[in-house]
């Protein structure tokens, strides 16, 4: 199960962002506005489908002159970003 909640410029991700959940979450990610903080403290799992949503949001917001920061990543999720080389592209804090 995956959930996302937005409040005052912060979107909180929780649960498992896998290929099935990413399909459902796609529209919600496209509606995100910047500047944006993505709180990943409760994000337990991510695969390439979830990474794609983050990359897409980052590209869209950056093109609009906005920022997107990923914060409080669990080590396993942080590792997946690093394996995909995205720790050098996305702003991870």
């Amino acid at each position, binding site marked *: 199960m995956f959930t996302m909640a937005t409040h005052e410029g912060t979107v909180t991700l929780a649960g*498992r962002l*896998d*290929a*099935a959940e990413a*399909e459902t979450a796609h529209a919600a990610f496209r509606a995100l506005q910047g500047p944006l903080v993505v709180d990943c403290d409760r994000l337990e*799992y991510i*695969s*390439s*489908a979830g*990474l*794609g*949503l983050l*990359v*897409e949001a*980052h*590209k869209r917001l*950056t093109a609009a002159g906005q920022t997107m920061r990923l914060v409080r990543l669990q080590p*396993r999720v942080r590792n*997946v970003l690093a*394996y*995909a*080389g*995205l720790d*050098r*592209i996305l702003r991870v804090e």
Partner: protein
Amino acid sequence: MEERRFPRDLAAVGPLHEFVRAFCRARGVTEDHAFEVDVVAEELFANQVKHQRGPDPVRVGLAGGAEGVTVRIVDRDVERFDPTAVPDDVARRNREGRAGGRGLALVRRLSGEFRYDYHDGTAVITAVLRWSA
């Protein structure tokens, strides 16, 4: 090898994760390593769902234990498509901000072996994850 059949649908990723987690718990695989098996199994399964149109469910097999796990996908009556031969262009995709194309890169980073066999219309994709004790 423990094997399950999953419908050729991304909605089956949830049940696939349950299969992986139950296998890893029963075999003493750590949570960190089970996470890696989860990612590899999902990426290989999703790759078949997206790129193949076979008539049967996709078979996913798991073997091994705390020192390493083998993930094997068997897909019958499908076209030849070798995922191990797909170029690793993830750096370019990242620079261009492209949404897709990172799944096989994750499989390569996490697996010590990544093999493809194709015979009489049946594809067998194998990834082996190994961890030092």
